[in-house]
C-alpha cells in the first residue's frame, strides 16, 4: 500500500477524494469498486473478491492517514496553581493515598485533608483535589477550588487571586479566593470586612449570602449589630434572616420574646435547694405525651438563650449554672443547641466547663466548633483522662488542630491495648479508634503510640496504623494554637 503511494503511481489525494464515495456506498449497501478505478489492476475482475480487496486497501489508507480533524476552537485550562503550603513529602504520598482510599465517604477524606492543613501540608493534586463546591475544604485550597470552578465554567481567562479584595474588584474573584480574602480581611480589620460585605451583599444569591454572612462569626462584635439587624429585618431569604438573628443573639441582642416563650417556660420550673446555701435548680418537667415532647423541641428550636432564660426569670449565665444536667438528655441537647447558636462566647465557655465536669462530655461535641483550638484540646484531654471517653469522641471534640501529648496513657489507651491483645481479636477491630488516635496525637505521641501498639502485637504494616504512621513521619509545621 505504502509502496503504491511512494512510487507515485497514484497520488494520495486521489485516494483520499475517492474514499468519501467508497465509504458512502458501503454504508448504503452498494458495491464500491467502481469508485476506486485507480486500483482496477489490484482489485481484479472477480466482483466479490474486488470488494474485499478494496476493503483491505481502504482500511489501511483510512486507518493510517485519516485522522479526526480537531475543531478550530480548542480551550486549554490554565496551570493548576501552587498553594501556599508545601505538598506532603514524596515518600509519604503512598500512605496519604491509602488513607484517602480507605476513607469511604467525603467526611473521612476531609478529616485527613484538615489534619494535613493543620500540620502545615497539602495533598498532591494527583492524590486529592477539592471540587469547586467543596465549602469545607481548608482555605489553603481556595486556588484549586477556583481552578475546578474555572474548568467547569468554560471561561477563557482566569480571574484574580490575592488578598486585596475591594468592592470594585469583588467580581474579578472566583468564590473560593474571595472567601479566603474575606477571611483574611476580617482577621486584619473586622470593620472593613463588614463594610465590604454591606456593599456587595445584595448582589449575591441566597446560598452565597448565607456563606458570606457566616464568615462574620469570626471577630463578631457590637460594631456588627446594625448590619445584622438590617438583615434580620429585611433580607429576602429566611435562612439568612435566621442566621442574622442568631448572630445578634450571640451579641446579646435577642428578639422580643413572643407568646410561645411562656408556653416553653411551662415545661420547666425553678426551685431552690439546700438549707444553708440556698441555690436554684432548673427542674425539668417530664412531658406526658409524644406530642408534648415534640412541642417542647419545636419551642426550644425557635427561641434564643436570653429569651428562654428571661422567661424563667433568670439571667442566661444563671440558667446555665442552675440547669439539672443528665436528667433529660433531649432537654440537655436542646439547651446546648441554644447556647451554641445564640450564646455569647462567655456563656459558651461557661457551659463547656460545666458539662465537662458533669460527665456529659458528648455534649461538648456540639459546642466544639465555636471553641478555640486550645480549648478544644483541653476538653478532649480532660474527657480522655477523667471521663473515659474513646479516641473517636475525643477527636470530634479536639478537631483537626489537636496535638495531644500522651493519649495512650488515658483509660482509652489502656483499654485499646487490652482489647488488641485478646486471643479473639480480629484484624479489623478498632480500626476507627486507631485512626482517630492517629488524628489527634502530637507527632511525638504518635511515635510512642506506635511503639506501644506494635509492642502489643500489632504488625508494623497493619493498615489500621496508617494514620498513626503518617502522623509520626510528618513533620509538624502547622501553627500551634
Amino acid at each position, binding site marked *: 500500500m505504502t509502496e503504491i503511494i511512494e512510487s507515485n503511481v497514484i497520488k494520495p489525494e486521489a485516494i483520499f477524494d475517492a474514499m468519501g464515495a467508497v465509504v458512502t456506498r458501503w454504508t448504503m449497501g452498494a458495491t464500491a469498486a467502481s469508485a476506486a478505478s485507480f486500483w482496477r489492476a489490484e482489485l481484479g475482475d472477480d466482483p466479490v473478491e474486488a470488494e474485499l480487496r478494496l476493503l483491505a486497501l481502504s482500511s489501511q489508507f483510512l486507518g493510517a492517514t485519516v485522522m479526526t480533524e480537531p475543531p478550530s476552537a480548542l480551550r486549554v485550562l490554565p496551570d493548576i496553581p501552587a498553594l501556599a503550603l508545601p505538598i506532603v513529602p514524596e515518600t509519604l504520598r503512598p500512605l496519604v493515598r491509602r488513607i484517602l482510599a480507605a476513607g469511604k465517604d467525603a467526611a473521612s477524606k476531609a478529616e485527613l485533608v484538615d489534619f494535613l492543613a493543620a500540620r502545615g501540608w497539602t495533598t498532591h493534586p494527583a492524590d486529592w483535589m477539592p471540587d469547586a463546591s467543596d465549602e469545607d475544604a481548608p482555605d489553603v485550597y481556595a486556588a484549586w477550588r477556583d*481552578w475546578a470552578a474555572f474548568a467547569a465554567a468554560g471561561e477563557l481567562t482566569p480571574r484574580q487571586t490575592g488578598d486585596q479584595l475591594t468592592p470594585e474588584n469583588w467580581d474579578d474573584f472566583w468564590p473560593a479566593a474571595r472567601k479566603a480574602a474575606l477571611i483574611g480581611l476580617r482577621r486584619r480589620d473586622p470593620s472593613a470586612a463588614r463594610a465590604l460585605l454591606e456593599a456587595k451583599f445584595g448582589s449575591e444569591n441566597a446560598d452565597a449570602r448565607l456563606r458570606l454572612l457566616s464568615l462574620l462569626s469570626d471577630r463578631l462584635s457590637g460594631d456588627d449589630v446594625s448590619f445584622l439587624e438590617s438583615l434580620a429585618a429585611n433580607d429576602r431569604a429566611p435562612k439568612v434572616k435566621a442566621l442574622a438573628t442568631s448572630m445578634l443573639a450571640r451579641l446579646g441582642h435577642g428578639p422580643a420574646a413572643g407568646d410561645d416563650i411562656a408556653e416553653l417556660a411551662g415545661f420547666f420550673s425553678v426551685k431552690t435547694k439546700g438549707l444553708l446555701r440556698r441555690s436554684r435548680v432548673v427542674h425539668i418537667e417530664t412531658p406526658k405525651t409524644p406530642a408534648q415532647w415534640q412541642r417542647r423541641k419545636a419551642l426550644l428550636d425557635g427561641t434564643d438563650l436570653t429569651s428562654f432564660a428571661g422567661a424563667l426569670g433568670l439571667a442566661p449565665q444563671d440558667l446555665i449554672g442552675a440547669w439539672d444536667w443528665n436528667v433529660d438528655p433531649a432537654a440537655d441537647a436542646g439547651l446546648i443547641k441554644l447556647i451554641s447558636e445564640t450564646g455569647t462566647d462567655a456563656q459558651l465557655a461557661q457551659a463547656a466547663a460545666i458539662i465537662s465536669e458533669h460527665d456529659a462530655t458528648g455534649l461538648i461535641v456540639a459546642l466544639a466548633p465555636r471553641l478555640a483550638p486550645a480549648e478544644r484540646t483541653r476538653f478532649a484531654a480532660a474527657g480522655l483522662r477523667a471521663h473515659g471517653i474513646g479516641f473517636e469522641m475525643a477527636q470530634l471534640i479536639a478537631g483537626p488542630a489537636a496535638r495531644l501529648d500522651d493519649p495512650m496513657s488515658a483509660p482509652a489507651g489502656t483499654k485499646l491495648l487490652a482489647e488488641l491483645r485478646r486471643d479473639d481479636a480480629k484484624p479489623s477491630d478498632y480500626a476507627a479508634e486507631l485512626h482517630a488516635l492517629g488524628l489527634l496525637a502530637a507527632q511525638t505521641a504518635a511515635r510512642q503510640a506506635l511503639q506501644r501498639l506494635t509492642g502489643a502485637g500489632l504488625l508494623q504494616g497493619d493498615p489500621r496504623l496508617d494514620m498513626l504512621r503518617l502522623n509520626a513521619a510528618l513533620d509538624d509545621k502547622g501553627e500551634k494554637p
Partner: protein
Amino acid sequence: MAIDLKAVEQLATDQSSLKAAAGLAKPAKWSGVGGSQDGALIWGECAGSGANPYRVMADLRDLGNKCTCPSRKFPCKHVLGLLWLNAESIVPFAPAETPAWVSDWLGRRRGTSAAKPASAAAPAGEKDLRTARIAEPEAAEDPKDAARREAQAAKRNEETERAILDALDALEQWIGDQLRLGLSGFIDDATARCRRIAARLVDGKAAVLAGRIDELPARLLALAAGDRPRGAVVELGKLVLLARAFRATPRDAEIRRAVATSETRETVLADPQAPRVNGHWEVLAEQVQTRRDGLVSQTTWLLNLTAHGPRFAMLLDFFPASAGRRGSVFTPGERFRAELVFYPSQQPLRALLVRRDAADETLTDEWPAPDGPISDALTRPLLAEPWTIDIPLLLPRGRIARDDAGHAWWRAADDTATLPIAGSVEGLLAGTEVMGAAAIWSGNRLTILAAQTPWGRIAGHD
C-alpha cells in the same frame, strides 16, 4: 517467627498440592522475597504460567495466606511453596518495609482463623512430604511410541489448520455480507452480528480472532456517530488482511498468535528466536478489562528505560471472570531491573517476565525521548502488522485541550499534531504542562497511560 515443614504438610489440601509446592520451593522460581521486621509476615512473587507473576503472602502467626493466582485450591501451591522456602530457609527472607499490597491484604482479612489446617476440615487422603520431594524420573520412552505421538500431533495440527482456514472462509463470507447489507445496518446491529460470527470462529479454533471480533462493537461505539462508518471499514478491512496473512503463512507463530492461540510460556522460554532483554523497566499502567467472552484480560504496560531492546513491553494474561477480582501485580510508577522474553515478532511487544529484582528506587533514568516524529510512531507498526489495533508510543511535550463539547484532545507543543483522547480527562492532567507521555493509539484515539509533568510523574486518565 519460624514454621516447620510439618505445618506446610498439614496445610496442603492434598498430595498433588504438596508435590507441586515441592517443585516451586526453588530460588529460581521466586523474586522479591521478603519478610516484615517483626518476622510475622512473608511475601514473594512467583512465576506462574502467565506473563505476570503471582503475588504470594502469608502471616506466619496463624498461617493465614493469600495468592493472586486464579487457583480454586486454598491454599494454592504458590502459598505452600512460599511457606516451604521459609521453613527450610531455602532463600533468605530479608527484613523489609511491608509492601502496600501485603498491608492491603492484612486490612481485608476477616477473623483470625483464616487458615485452618486442611486436615481438620476435610481429610483429603494421606499427604506425605517425603513422597512429594521425590522427583519422578522421566519414563524412558519407546522410540516407536514417540514417533506415533509425533505423527498424532502433526495430524492434530493439520486438522486445526483446516478448521481455521474453514472458519476464515466463513469470516470473509460474513464480511462480504456486511458490505452488501450496508454498513449502517451493521453499525446498528454490530453486537449481535459480531457475536454470531465470533461463535463460528470459536468452533473453528480461531479463538483469538473471535475475541477480537467480540470486542469490535465496543471500539466502534466509542467513536463519534459520524466517524463509525470509517471505523467499521478500518476494522473489517484489518480482518481481511489478517485472514489473508494466515492463508499465506499458516505456520507463522506471530500470525497464529493473532488468530488462534498464543504459545505457552514454556514454548516461548525455550525458543532461541525469542529475544531476551535485560533492562530497567518502569510500570506505566495496568489495564483490566472484562471481555464479552467472559474472560478478564489483565495487561501490564512496561516502559524500557534503557537504550537497547523494544521500547515497550506488554504483559498479557487472561483469566475467567468467575475467578473473581484479582489484585494488581505491580504498582504504577514502580521501577525494577528484570529480564523479559518477548514473543518472537517483527516488532516485539508482548512479553513474559523471566526474572525480576525487587523494586529499585535508585533507578532514576529519565524517560527516553520519542523515537521519531509522531506521525511515524502512529503508523510505522502498521507496515509490519497492518491488523494491529493497539500502538504504544511516547508523546513529546504537549498539553490537554478541550473542544466546545467538552471532549479532550492532546496537542503537541510544536503544534505538529492534535489527537483525540479516548474518554475524559479531569483534574491534574488537564491543568498542567505535559513534558512527555506514554500512550496507546487505538482505534484513532489516544489513551494516556502515564505522563511526566512539573508535578512529577502522574497517572493517565480513565
